[in-house]
């Protein structure tokens, strides 16, 4: 007889589909940082042109391919869930990390929105506990959904007395 085996189930929700273009733009920016200077130098410095343009082209091809493919995969892997008792997230594939923060121990709930995120209508919810292990972040929620969620979390945590340590 084999004993039943316990395993983690993935969190329920995927992030908003608009994270795909947001991640893609981030990837492209990261690609442009080495490619643009290499290309400009390559055009200016004739003797070293091949040595500068070839790596630039290689990085460009790799970066564009990654920015097309990777976000689709990330979108499938990263998940989140908020229940009445806890916040639950899963990130990473090669290094998977599940994080669980109980509602009763949450100290602050913030929403943040960078300029890129704003242009896609996305927002991040940051949930901090008293631990120095770092905040639990839900990056890439619809901005209205994010503020509604933050409000709900704040209400839930306010209802529980104590200083959450």
């Amino acid at each position, binding site marked *: 007889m084999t004993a039943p085996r316990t395993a983690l189930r993935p969190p329920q929700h995927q992030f908003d589909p608009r994270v795909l273009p947001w991640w893609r733009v981030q990837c492209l920016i990261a690609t442009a940082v080495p490619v643009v200077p290499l290309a400009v130098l390559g055009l200016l410095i004739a003797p070293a042109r091949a040595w500068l343009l070839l790596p630039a082209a290689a990085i460009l091809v790799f970066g564009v391919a990654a920015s097309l493919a990777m976000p689709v995969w990330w979108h499938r892997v990263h998940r989140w869930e908020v229940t009445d008792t806890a916040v639950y997230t899963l990130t990473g594939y090669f290094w998977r990390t599940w*994080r*669980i923060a*109980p509602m009763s121990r949450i100290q602050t709930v913030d929403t943040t929105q960078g300029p890129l995120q704003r242009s896609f209508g996305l927002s991040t919810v940051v949930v901090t*506990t*008293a631990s*120095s292990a770092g905040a639990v972040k839900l990056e890439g929620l619809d901005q209205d959904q994010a503020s509604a969620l933050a409000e709900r979390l704040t209400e839930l945590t306010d209802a529980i007395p104590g200083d959450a*340590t």
Partner: protein
Amino acid sequence: MNGIEHAEGAEPWRRLHRDGLKVTALYMLGVAVGAGVPVAIGIGSGPGLLIALAFVVPGAAVVIGLVVGYESIRLRVTRYRVTDARVEMHTGVLFKTRRSLMRERIRSVDLTANPLERVFGLAKVKVGTGETGSGTGSTNEQTLTLDSVARAEADRLRAELLRRSAVEAGEDGEQRLATWRPGWLKYAPLSFLTPMLAGAAVGAVFQVADWFGRGGLPVQVVGDLVDEYGPWTVLGLGLVGLLVLGAIASLALQGEAWWGHRLDREPGGTLRVRRGLFVSRSLSLEEERIRGVEIVEPLGVRSAGAGRLDVVAIGLKTDQEGSDLSTLVPAAPLPAVVDAAEAVVGPVDCALTPHPRTARARRLRWAAVAVVVLAAAATVPHLLWDLPALLSAAIVLAAVLASVFAVWTAFDSYASLGHALTERHLVSRRGSTRRATVHLDRSGIIGWRLTQSVFQRRMGLMTLDATTAAGKGHYAVIDADEHEILDFAAEAVPDLLRPFVVRSPE
């Protein structure tokens, strides 16, 4: 003068002790002599001693004058008071700062006095709150230091600031939990301080030689010795000599830090650690903030059957290496450490669940990588250059010893791995060069972090991190069985993990 300030609250403002100025003046005099003499000798060897003194003495006087002047203004402008709700301090010579701590948040009061301060009957008081301050630098905002007040005033402040919770406990006086014995000093030379201090001594020799413009002298002396007595004698005796030196220094440092140590439980639920030969230190810690203990056995100390006891408490950072602030009992025989741990947090004895064999395979794999790298590092120089016999032998010997150590560490760190639940605590043991067993209060766990790398997944392993507000913020059970550890976590903190796990038949 103080009358005007009464308006804000009934409690009058107090000032720091005037004798603090004398302490500063004497201290600066010492610094000036210590720094001035080598400079005077340095200059004096050139143009002559009188000219040197003509420069150095006024220079020293100006420096002492400036520092003492600054200090006297600081002493004059610094005021503090303890009201019903807060501790407040106003200070600042150039920039005014006003610091105010809520009394109900105060978790520790730390008294220190260096020998000079002791002569004048003074002490520094450091008041700490339980705020962990996850942002960098914010811990600073949460402490308040009175530098310095009279000894009696310091004791009064300590008693008053931690009195609030004294209600329920009977006034039956202190309870002794652990007392240090001078015999425990025999563990000091086994600590990692010994090689570190030996290394520092070598550095210091070069530094001093450099000051006198003879930077190459130590190398030359060693070269002459090698010519005379042969390389192996010099290398062997040199290492032994350095280690003996390091051991003596380590003995002196730890003896100074821990002389007269005692750990008491005071009425009102505070722990108090008192220790120190020249600089007397006293740390009071509210038990309400304690979330567990950690029994730490560094390799050298462990080989002698000893360990030390650290506390896992909110507001006491333990992650800086070398900080002994969170240490309740220094290196001592394990039974004594366990007794102290039980006196602080209750029963700690339990059988640990070993981790799967694959965890050992994982460690052996790391060791194999280390051996390959070491072998390559030892071979490459031989291929590139024609090495002298001594150097070649030394490289090979070092690589072989390091490889043996890597493999031994793999077995040993696997043997260390283990976890268990007791009625109150989650227990996790890990590590080889620094084996540590943490007993973390289950009610102090404020979340889980589970991680699994691609390699761990193939081996059916998983790492569980219990996050907490205390100590270093998270304590891990590494490389446990990926199914068993989930049951373990679900049992440790009821209802937290359960909604997120599924049970499936194999």
